Every structure is written in C-alpha cells, then in structure tokens.
C-alpha cells in the first residue's frame, strides 16, 4: 500500500542519495565499486555465519578492550591496596593487579566490561574453531582458497596467543601460574630457550617491572594489529574469490546463489552482531568469569587447585598432564619435559594443519578449482581424519580438567590420566574408523541429502529473461524423488520448505533449467 506521500519521500531520498554519491564519486570514483558491493551476493546458509560470529566477537573485544585499557596499569611495581574489597586490604600487590581489582570494584561498568571482554574472547575462539571445522569438513579450503586457509589458521594461532596474553595481564594467582608454566615451556626449548624466556620477561621469572609493559604492548598492540591485518586479508580474499556454497538446485561451479549485500544480507548480519553483543553482555553481567579478587595476587609460593588455562589452551595443558615423565639428557645437555607437549606437539599439529590443502590435493589427486562444497560424507577419508583429530583434541582438553572431573565423579586422577593417555591414541582411531564407515553407509543409503527450502529462485538466462524456480517445480522434483530414487523424504517433514527434498536428486531436467539455457546445475548431483 504505497501511498503517494511515501513515494515522494522515496524520491526525495533517492535525490539526496544521488547528490551525496555524486559528490563522492567526483572525487573517488566509487560508484562502480559501490554498486558491485551493494549487489554482491552472499550465500546465506547458517553455517557460513560462524565466521561472522568470530568477526563480530572481535569487534566487541576491541570495543570492550579499549575501555579496559583506559583503566589498566601495566606495571609490575609494588603497591599496597586500600580499597573496597576488604580481604585484600593492606596487602602488597603489583600495580597491574591493583588496577584490575579497581576496575572490577570501583570503575563504572568496569566489571561488566571486563567479564564481557573475557566471555567475548572465549566465544571468539570457539567460533574460530567451529568455523575451522566447517571449512575443513566441507572442503572449503580447496583451490583456490588455500591462501585463506593459511591466513585463517594464523588467525587462530594469534588469537590463542592473544587470549593467553590477556588471561595473563591481571597478575592474579591463576594468571601467574599460567605464566610460570609458559616460562617453563619456553625455557625448555633446546639451545635458545632460556635466553628467549629471560629476554621476554626481562630477567628471571617472575620478571622485572618491565614485564607487564611488554605483555601489555603485546596484548594491546602487537597481536590485535596482526589480527586486524590478517582479518582484513581474510575478508578481502573472500570478497574477491566469493563465498563457497553447498551444491543444490540451481547452483553450479560458476554461479552464486544467495542474498544481496544491500539490504538483505547487511541487515541480517547486523542483527547477528546485535545478538552476539546481547549474549556477550548478558554473560558478562550474569555469569562470573575469572574472579581475580578470589585468586589473590600472584606469588611463586602460592598455588590453587583447579589451575587451568582458558578452554582454547586446555588441549596444551592436557598434553602437559598426559606426557610421561620423560626428559632427554646427554653430553651435559637436556631437552626438558615441557618441550615435547608444549612446543613440539603444537608445532606438529599446526604444521599438519597448514599443510593440509597440499596433503588433501595429493590424497584425492584433485587439483581442480572448487566453488561448491563437499558434504562431509563425500570424502570419507578426510572426514574420518578430521573427526579423529577432533577426538584427539577433545581427549587432551578433558585431560586438562582431570582434578575437577575426579572431584565431581569421585575418580582418582591417576586413573583418569591413564585412561586419557590411552584414549589419546585409541579414541582418534576408533572415531576415525567409525566415521569412515558411517560416511560410506550414508553414501550407500543416500540419506538426508543437503537440501534447501525452495521458496523461489529467480534465474536469469543469457538472453536476459527471467525464470522463477519455485514451488511448482518442487512438486515435480519431489515426485521424481519418490518414484525414481526412493531416498528418504522423512527429513523433509521438519519444515515446509524442505518439502522440496530431493530436488537435486531429481536432477535439473525436472526443474526445467536446461531449457532455460542456463548452465545445468547439479554438477555434483547429490543423488549420485
């Protein structure tokens, strides 16, 4: 019901838009790029939004982080606390710890901001990990996207280091213990370890007064800059190469199906951003995280049960617990114990992950370009290796909580550690084999194909005519599926949109696409 008034407002707005854009274009010549950008099509499968969750968490991290940095004092000099928190009254502590205590107790919204920052960091890493899994299991890292895989892995690595350096800033008992362990790990590196550790800390552990300045510069400046740069490159390459998509009706290696950036995708994405902010700040207000006032100031003589790193470093902490008491000594030198689980293991893990696109190319003798994704079952071997790796990481992560699990379940940590030591070998293999079998089984049965609700896809053919692939075709396809294929349509019952189950199975002849002169989709007919 567009009224005359509305139309004239629209026209006025259009004139204004034109004027502004004209002025800009006169100077920067942006129109061509801008129109491309606004009309750019993004596939909007929900699993493609996990990377966005990571990105928006990062934005929240920057905003909350700036606020926190206004109050944090990166100094190791010792002060005596006199403040509202009675149990610390009169105690000696570093200025760094005192400033975080004051931030939590005296600064307006300080505690919420600090907790939201920490929750956002945990969610940031969780989203990156999930995004990595999605990319891995769907083969999205294949040519031409190897560069972005490598950048993404570097983002993960730097994000982990960034998270750990943030965890270490408050100089409470927990972060001090974490730094102590990291110092020991660095110190264990052959030849240079001690020198590197002493260089970073400005002296022997727990470091001289310059240490917190350095840690702060690293956390506040160095790593965020690297993250920002890499994120820019990650997105730029994504923009240039365009997003991958699942195979489906109307989708080919050469087209892209989705929503335009402006306004649909931008508004959806903005909505997602707001939801992330809501959850992060909700957690920040209602779920306590890292109560540093409870842990107290750090001193090397103090310890606390339940000394664990944040979850994303848990697998390394677990590896430290599971690694046997081996050390290598000869000719007056030794390779100390923490080197193997603390340096060698992550080194190997990240090397394999960095090399994975190359390994994958050889494994499947596939050097082709791919814009359409694999379903996990399409490559049982890759999926099996991925699931095995996930079980390995899960095993190590569980190992970082042996004392707490022991306490909760009344099992000795000796037994738990032994189980998990064997588990780190057995679980990945068993999980991998089972996954492999399940993939093959699914392939044989052709159960639950990737499907999407076909509300109506508009396709334009070479002559400029438009064709709507909509519900009327879905019926045909559904029939075809039922008669010809016998695949399951049980999953389609979940929602009406999925009634079109098996569209792709039926092939696109049924949808009449070929007649429309468009390159036939179904390059990878899921029906097999």
């Amino acid at each position, binding site marked *: 019901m567009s009224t005359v008034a509305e139309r004239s407002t629209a026209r006025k707005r259009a004139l204004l838009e034109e004027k502004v854009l004209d002025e800009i274009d006169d100077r920067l010549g942006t129109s061509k790029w801008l129109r491309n950008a606004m009309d750019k099509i993004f596939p909007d*499968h929900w699993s493609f939004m996990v990377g966005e969750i990571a990105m928006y968490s990062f934005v929240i991290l920057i905003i909350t982080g700036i606020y926190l940095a206004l109050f944090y004092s990166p100094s190791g000099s010792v002060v005596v606390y006199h403040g509202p928190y009675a149990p610390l009254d009169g105690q000696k502590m570093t200025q760094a710890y005192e400033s975080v205590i004051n931030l939590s107790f005296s600064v307006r919204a300080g505690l919420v901001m600090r907790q939201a920052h920490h929750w956002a960091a945990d969610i940031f890493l969780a989203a990156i990990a999930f995004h990595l899994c999605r990319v891995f299991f769907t083969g999205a890292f294949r040519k031409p996207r190897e560069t972005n895989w490598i950048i993404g892995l570097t983002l993960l690595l730097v994000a982990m280091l960034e998270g750990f350096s943030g965890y270490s800033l408050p100089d409470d008992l927990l972060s001090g213990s974490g730094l102590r362990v990291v110092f020991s790990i660095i110190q264990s590196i052959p030849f240079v370890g001690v020198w590197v550790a002493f260089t970073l800390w400005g002296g022997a552990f727990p470091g001289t007064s310059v240490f917190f300045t350095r840690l702060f510069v690293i956390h506040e400046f160095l790593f965020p800059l690297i993250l920002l740069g890499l994120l820019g490159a990650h997105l730029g390459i994504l923009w240039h190469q365009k997003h991958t998509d699942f195979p489906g009706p109307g989708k080919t290696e050469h087209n892209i199906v989705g929503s335009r950036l402006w306004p649909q995708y931008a508004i959806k994405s903005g909505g997602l951003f707001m939801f992330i902010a809501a959850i992060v700040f909700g957690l920040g207000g209602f779920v306590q995280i890292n109560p540093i006032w409870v842990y107290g100031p750090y001193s090397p003589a103090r310890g606390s049960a339940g000394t664990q790193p944040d979850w994303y470093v848990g697998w390394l902490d677990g590896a430290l617990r599971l690694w046997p008491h081996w050390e290598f000594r000869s000719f007056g030198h030794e390779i100390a114990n923490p080197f193997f689980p603390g340096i060698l293991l992550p080194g190997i893990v990240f090397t394999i992950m960095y090399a994975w696109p190359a390994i994958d190319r050889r494994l499947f003798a596939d050097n082709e370009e791919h814009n359409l994704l694999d379903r996990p079952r399409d490559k049982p071997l890759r999926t099996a290796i991925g699931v095995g790796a996930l079980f390995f990481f899960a095993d190590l992560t569980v190992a970082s909580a042996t004392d707490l699990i022991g306490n909760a379940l009344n099992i000795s940590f000796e037994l738990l550690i032994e189980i998990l030591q064997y588990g780190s070998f057995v679980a990945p293999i068993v999980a991998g084999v089972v996954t492999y079998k399940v993939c093959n089984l699914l392939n044989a049965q052709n159960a639950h194909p990737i499907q999407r609700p076909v509300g109506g896809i508009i396709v334009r053919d070479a002559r400029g005519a438009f064709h709507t692939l909509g519900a009327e075709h879905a019926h045909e396809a559904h029939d075809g599926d039922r008669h010809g294929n016998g695949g399951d349509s049980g999953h389609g019952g979940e929602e009406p949109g999925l009634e079109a189950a098996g569209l792709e199975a039926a092939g696109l002849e049924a949808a009449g696409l070929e007649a429309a002169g468009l390159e036939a989709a179904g390059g990878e007919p899921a029906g097999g």
Partner: protein
Amino acid sequence: MSRTNKSRALAGPAALVALAAALFSVLVWAVPAPAQSKASTNVAAKAPAKVAAGTVANDAGGTIAVSTNPATITAGQFLYDEHCQACHGSGAVGARAPQLLDVGPAAVDFMLSTGRMPLNSITQQPLPGRPYFNKTEIAQIVAYINFVDRSHGTPGVGIPKVTPASLSEGNQLFLLNCSQCHDASGAGGMLSHGYVVPSLRQATKEQIAEAIRVGPRPMPGFGPGQLTDQQVSAIANYVYYLAHSGNRGGFGIANFGPVPEGFVAIIFGLGLLLLVARLIGNRG
C-alpha cells in the same frame, strides 16, 4: 497517514514498552545481586576495621568449653555405643577403626557436625554430608569422648573459638596454606590416590577452625606452633566470607575456574549463537 492514525499506531508499542519495562524491573529486582547484599558488605567493611594491627594474642581465641555434666556424658555414651562402638571399639579403644583416646572434642565435633561420621564402610573416605545427629546429640557424644580422653590423660584438641579477625590476614594465610588443595575459591579439588578434597563453601567457621587444628586425614593438622588462634580465626573468617559474600560477577558456575567457564562459553555462548544463525540463515 493521518495524525490520529499515527497516535493510535504508537499506542500499541508504547503499551508494549511499558509492559516490558515493568517485567524487566521485576526481573532485575528478583535477580540476586550477591555482592551488594547488606550482609556481605557488613562483613567486608566492618570486620577488618575492628581488628587493629598488632593485637595478636596467642590465647585470643581459646576453646569452647565441653560439658562435664554426668547426665550428658551418659547420654553420649549411649549414643556412642549404639552408633560408633562397632568400629571404634567399646570405650573408644579402637577396633576396626582407630582409637579415639586422644582425639579431643574438636575432632569429634568436626566429624559429626560435618556429617563425615558415622561412615557406612570403613574403607570409604569420610566426606561431608548431612549430619546424622542433631546438635544436642553431637554435644553429648563430644562430652562422652572428652570424658574418655581426659580419663586417659590425653585430652586432645579442644573446639577452637572463632573470634572476629582480619579478612586480609585470612586471605593471605588461606592462599599460602589452603588453596593449593581446596582451590582459591574453596570449591575443593583432588588429591593423589583418589582422595577427594572437599569444598569449604558449606562449612561453618567452627568447622573450618576444627579442621585446621585437627587435620582430618589426608589433610595435615596445623598446631599452635604454626598458626596462632588468631590466625586460625582469620582463616575461618575469610573462608566463611568467601563462601557467603556471593559472587559479584553473577552466577558462580561451581566456582571451579576456567573449565566450567569454557563450558558455558562453548555450550551456552556459541551454542545460542549457532541457534540464532540458524534462525537468520538458510537451512539447507
């Protein structure tokens, strides 16, 4: 669109906002705001102020007197014979379980008031639970064992009296002597050989002081040569404060540190966001 239409159009949203605001304020009211509660701020602000520095006296705390009334002792003996004698032997001389001839009132009161005793099986590690006896019964058994110990010439450790003390001193002592096993938050942990380190968050001040003095194995005891009564009181006060001052930051999620935090971040944080993404995105 006319003006009246517009105002009518705004009435709906306005009502909704009012409703939401009302609901919200109720919610905010109902949600506990732990650290801001009056009780805790009192503990926080006043307790340390009262304790001037340098007033540490070794006998500041002292012990709580145990009844020597023959009727109480008899009642205690009756309860002992019924519930404890099977393991600890007649007259507390020990049988399948250790003798109690020198344990003193603190150990008995600790074991009974925290529900550690009586045990179902002597191979079990005594862990805190709901006390089996009520306060009067505990006092009676304590009186009886006290009587036995005194007759034996080895009175054992008396029930320490907890006096108001500095939270700050308690915090320092706790973090140096206790937190490595019990966690800085007092949530407990795990020792070797499957011994569970219990949580301190349900303990009373007296129970904490008793445990420090007695050393319920596998925990070591801390004698007066190591911690003065004043220091024991300080620890007891701090642990009690820790458990009862609430969590400023919101729900404490078991006060176990980064592990449950990670769970919440992944399951609740990312999980919820994935649901949102599923609502927003296509589900193919």
